[in-house]
C-alpha cells in the first residue's frame, strides 16, 4: 500500500531511549540517596530542596516529579506539597507526579496521594522507585496516557466515549489541538477545561516530536 496519505504512527520507544531523553526531578528538603543510583543507571535526575522555580514546573520541564508532602513549597502554599500538586494538576494536567512521602497515614493527607499519579513511601527500596519511574516513563511516551488524561480532565462534563478517544488521537497525530478544542466546544461550556485538554494534546505532540528530532 502506498503510504503517502497514511497518518504517522505513534512510535514504539525502547525504555533505554526514553531514559536518555527524559528528566526527573525530586523535590524534597531531605537528602535523596537514590539520586546517585538513578544517575548510575542512566537517568537525568535533579533534586531541589524546595520549589525553586515554579514557572519551570508549570512549563512541564520535567517528565516526572517526585514531590514530598511536607517541608517543600511553603512559600507558594500553606499546604506545602499538596498545594503544589493541586496547582500543577490545574496548570499542567499532563505532568506526571509521584507523591513521595513518609507521612502517608492521616486521612487529611489523602488528597495528596489521590491526586498523584503514583505513591511511593520514602522507605521503599530502590528497585521499587526504579520500577515505578520506568512504568510511568513508558506511560508518558504512550498515546494512551494522553488519551486517558484528557478523558479524566473532561470527566465531570463529558462522559468518556470512543468518539472522544478518536478525536484526541486524531488531534495528536494531526498535530492539531484545535481539532479537540472544536469538538469539546460543542459539548462543554467551561473554557478552562477545554484549554487544559488542548494543553494535554500539545504536550503529547511535543513528546512525540522528541522522537522525530
Amino acid at each position: 500500500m502506498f503510504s503517502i496519505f497514511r497518518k504517522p504512527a505513534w512510535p514504539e520507544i525502547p525504555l533505554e531511549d526514553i531514559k536518555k531523553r527524559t528528566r526527573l526531578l525530586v523535590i524534597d528538603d531531605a537528602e535523596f540517596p537514590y539520586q546517585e543510583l538513578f544517575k548510575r543507571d542512566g537517568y537525568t535526575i535533579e533534586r531541589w530542596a524546595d520549589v525553586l522555580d515554579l514557572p519551570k514546573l508549570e512549563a512541564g520541564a520535567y517528565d516526572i516529579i517526585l514531590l514530598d508532602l511536607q517541608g517543600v513549597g511553603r512559600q507558594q502554599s500553606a499546604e506545602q506539597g499538596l498545594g503544589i500538586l493541586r496547582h500543577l494538576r490545574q496548570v499542567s494536567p499532563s505532568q506526571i507526579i509521584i507523591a513521595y512521602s513518609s507521612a502517608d497515614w492521616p486521612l487529611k493527607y489523602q488528597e495528596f496521594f489521590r491526586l498523584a499519579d503514583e505513591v511511593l513511601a520514602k522507605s521503599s527500596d530502590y528497585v521499587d522507585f526504579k520500577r515505578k519511574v520506568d512504568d510511568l516513563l513508558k506511560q508518558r511516551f504512550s498515546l494512551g496516557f494522553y488519551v486517558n488524561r484528557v478523558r479524566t480532565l473532561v470527566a465531570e462534563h463529558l462522559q468518556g466515549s470512543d468518539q472522544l478517544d478518536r478525536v484526541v488521537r486524531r488531534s495528536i497525530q494531526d498535530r492539531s489541538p484545535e481539532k479537540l478544542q472544536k469538538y469539546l466546544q460543542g459539548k462543554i461550556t467551561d473554557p478552562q477545561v477545554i484549554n487544559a485538554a488542548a494543553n494535554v494534546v500539545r504536550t503529547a505532540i511535543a513528546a512525540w516530536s522528541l522522537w522525530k528530532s
Partner: protein
Amino acid sequence: MEKLVLPFFPFPHVIHGERRPGYALDTPSCCAHCGRNCEKSNTADIGLCPHGFNFVRQSQEFVIFGFVIQSQNTSAAHKKALHQHRRNIVKRDQIERACQTFEAVVRDFGSEIEAKKKAIIDEYCRNKRYERDFLDNIRPEIQRSFSFLHDYRQFIARVRQNINVVLEHRYPGVDLDQQLSAALPAEAAIYWASLLMEEKLQTAFLLLHPERITDPAQVSPFRLHGLVLKYLRIYNSAFATKDIKPKVVGNSIGEIKGNRAAVPVIPHTLIDNALKYSVRGAEVVIGFEESDHEIELSVSSYGPKIHGDEFEKIFQVFYRGRSATLQEEEGAGFGLYLAQFVANQMGTRIKVSQAENNTGSFGFRTTFSVRFTRER
C-alpha cells in the same frame, strides 16, 4: 453523699458547705453572721459554739448545728441560748437517733447509687464504648507521646535508602534478593532491621489514626498467604537471633477482603508476639487452613502463662499479661488490641488458646487463630 436525702432531715445542717434549715428546727438567726465554728471543728463529739448552740460533725461534708442540749455545758452563752431558744432544745438521744437515721439513709442511698453505677458500667463495658471513649480521651496524650514517630519514620527511610545504596554499589547487577543473600550479615541486618522498625511504627500510627482502620477506600481483596510470608521474611533475621526457624504449615491460595492498611497489623502482631515471648530454640508454627468459604491463620508458639481471667483482657488496650510482663518488661500493650479491633471490623475475632501444662523450659504452648471469610 448526695444532697437528695437531706430535705427530710429535722435539724439545721451544713452539707457540702451549704447551710440548710431542718424541717423541725429552723436555723437560728445568729448563724447568719457567726464565725462558723461548727463547720471548722473537726471533733466528732458534740461541740458548743460561741453563741451557745451545740453542733456535731457527722462526716467530712455533713455537720448538724443550731440545737441546744440541756445537760450540756453550762457556759453563760449556753445558758442564754437555753433561755432564749427553747424551741431549739433537744435531747441527746434525739440527736443520736437523727444521726443513725441519717447514716442508714446515706448507706441505702449509697448502695442504690452503687448498683446503678455498676449497671451503667457493665453496659458501658458490654457495648465496648469504653474502648473508644478511652482512646478518645487519651488520644492527645498518645499524640504527644508519639510525636516523634514522624521523625523516626524519616530516620528509618534514610537508613533504608542508604543501605539500598550500599547494596547496589557492593553487589551491582543483581536483584535485591540476591544482594541480600550475598550481603555481609551486618548489611543484611541493617536492611531487615529498618523494615522491622517501619512495621512497628506503622502499628503505632494506626493507634494514632484509627480512622485509617475503617477507611472504606482502603478495602480490597488480597492474598493473606502472601501477606503473612512477607512478615515472616521481615522477621526471619530476628527469629534467627533466637535460633528459631518458623515453620509454615498448610497453604492458602484464596483471597480475603479487608483494609490493606490495617489487616497487616494482625499477622504482624501475632508473629511479633511469637518472637518476643519465645525462648531460644523454641518452635514457632504458622498455619493456614482453607475451605471454600474461610481461610484460617494460626500462629502457635511457646510463651508465658495466660491466666484464666486474662484470655479476654490481653486484647484490651494497654493491658499486658502478668506473666508476659514478668518475662518481657518492655511492651506497649496495644498490638493485640489493634489486631482484634481490625479483626472485629472484618466481622471476625482472634481467639487464643493455651495448653494447660507447661511443657518444659519453653513455656506454655499458645495458639492465636483467626478465621477470615474467603473472598475467592
